C-alpha cells in the first residue's frame, strides 16, 4: 500500500458503517466528528454525496416511437380499445407485433404487396422508387404505417403531423424551417399526384409517387420527433 496513505483505524471502520445512515439523514454525531478529523473519510463522504446527487439528477430518457406503436398494436389486437375494429383486425393476432423489427418489415411488405396486387391495368411495376423513397425508413414509421390498418399511410401521417405540431415550437427556427419546407414540398407532390389520379386512376407513376410521398412525409415527421438537438 502507498506509504502516504493512512492506515485505517477502527474509527474509519465505524465511520463506514454509519455513513449510509448519515447520508439518509439520520443524526450521527460520530460521523460528523470523524469527518472533521479524517481527511480520507471526508473525501469518501463527499464523493458519495456527489454520486448520489448526480444519480438523482440523471435525465429521463426517451424511448423510440416504436414502443408505443407496438403497445398500441398489441392492445388493439387484444381488443382493449372499445372502438377499434376493422377489416385488418385479424392481422393483429400475429405474434410478429411484439417486436419492432418484424413489425416494420412486415408492414412494409404488406403495404407494398397490397398496393402491387391491387387490380389495376398496367405492366409490372417498378417499385424501386417507392422502396428508395422509404430507404432507411425508421422501424417506428413502418410499424405505425401498419398500425393504421393497411395500405393507407394517411392516418399514420396525420398522427405524426399532430405530434409534430405539438413539438415544433421546441425546434430551433432554422431546423423548423427546414422541416416545414420539406413537408410543404411533399404536400405539393401529394396534392398533384392525387389530382393526377382523379383524372387518370390507372396512372402507375402517380401511384408510385403518391406512396413515396406519404412514406417520405412519415419519415420526415418521425425524424422531427426523434431529434434531440443535443439536449
Amino acid at each position, binding site marked *: *500500500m502507498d506509504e502516504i496513505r493512512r492506515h485505517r483505524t477502527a474509527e474509519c471502520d465505524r465511520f463506514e458503517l454509519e455513513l*449510509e445512515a448519515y447520508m439518509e439523514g439520520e443524526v450521527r454525531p460520530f460521523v460528523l466528528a470523524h469527518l472533521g478529523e479524517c481527511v480520507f473519510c471526508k473525501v469518501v463522504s463527499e464523493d*458519495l454525496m456527489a454520486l448520489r446527487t*448526480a444519480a438523482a439528477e440523471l435525465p429521463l*430518457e426517451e424511448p423510440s416511437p416504436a414502443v*408505443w406503436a407496438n403497445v398500441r398494436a398489441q392492445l388493439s389486437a387484444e381488443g*382493449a380499445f372499445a372502438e377499434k375494429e376493422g377489416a385488418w383486425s385479424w392481422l393483429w393476432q400475429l405474434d410478429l407485433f411484439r417486436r419492432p423489427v418484424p413489425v416494420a418489415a412486415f408492414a412494409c411488405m404488406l403495404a407494398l404487396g397490397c398496393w402491387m396486387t391491387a387490380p389495376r391495368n398496367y405492366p409490372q411495376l417498378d417499385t424501386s422508387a417507392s422502396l428508395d423513397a422509404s430507404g432507411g425508413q425508421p422501424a417506428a414509421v413502418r410499424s405505425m404505417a401498419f398500425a393504421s390498418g393497411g395500405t393507407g399511410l394517411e392516418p399514420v401521417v396525420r398522427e405524426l403531423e399532430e405530434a409534430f405540431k405539438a413539438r415544433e415550437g*421546441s425546434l430551433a427556427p432554422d431546423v423548423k424551417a427546414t422541416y416545414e419546407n420539406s413537408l410543404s414540398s411533399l404536400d405539393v407532390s401529394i396534392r398533384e399526384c392525387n389530382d393526377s389520379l382523379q383524372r387518370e386512376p390507372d396512372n402507375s407513376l402517380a401511384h408510385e409517387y403518391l406512396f413515396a410521398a406519404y412514406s417520405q412525409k412519415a419519415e420526415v415527421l418521425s425524424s422531427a420527433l426523434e431529434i434531440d438537438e443535443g*439536449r
Partner: protein
Amino acid sequence: MSQQKTAAPKAASETQLVARAQRGDEEAFATLFEMHKRRVYSLCLRMTGNTAEAEDLTQEAFLQLFRKISTFRGESAFSTWLHRLAVNVVLMHLRKKGLQQVSLDEVDSSQDEPVKRDYGDYDRRLMGSVDRISLTRAIAELPPGYRTVFVLHDVEGYEHNEIAEIMKCSVGNSKSQLHKARMKLRDWLRQNEGLMTSGEPVTSDQAPTER
C-alpha cells in the same frame, strides 16, 4: 442520452384518464403512455443497461399495465402503481436471464470482487462533479444486484423498506448493498478518469495539428 421535450398532453386529471382507459378509450391509453413513458423507460434502461432490452421491457410494462388497468382501485397513486409494476417486470426479466445476484437475501460476499476500501489518494477524488455519461456507464457496469439497489434508491428515490419489499430482502441488506454499490461506482469512476486524460487541451490560438 436524448432528452426530448415533447409537449405535455392536454390537461386531464389522471383519475379521469384512468377511468377512461378502463372503459377502453384509446386516447386515454395514449395519454397515460405519453405521461409516464420516459420514467418507465429510464428505469428499465438503467436497470438493464441495454436500450433494446429496455424498450422491450417498457413495452411489456405498459402492456401489463393496460391489461390490468381495470383492477386499479386508486389505493395508491397511479404512477406509483405503474412504477412498481415496471420494477417487477424488469426484475422478472433479470431473474429469467439467470442473474441470481438480483436476489439480495444472502449477505453479499459473492458479487464479483470485494469492494475496494481505498481511502487514500486525496488528490484523486471525484471533485464533486460527476458527468452523467460516465455515471450512466458506470451504473451499467455494476453487477445486477448492486445496480438494482442503486437505481431504485439513488436514481428512482425508493426508500429502503420499499426496496426490501420489492427485492424480498431485509432493510439492512438493502442498505448494505447500496453502500457497496456506491463504493464500486466511486472506484470505477476514479479508475476511468486516468484512461481518458491522454492529452492536454490546447488553446484556440494554437496552430492546428499537422497530420
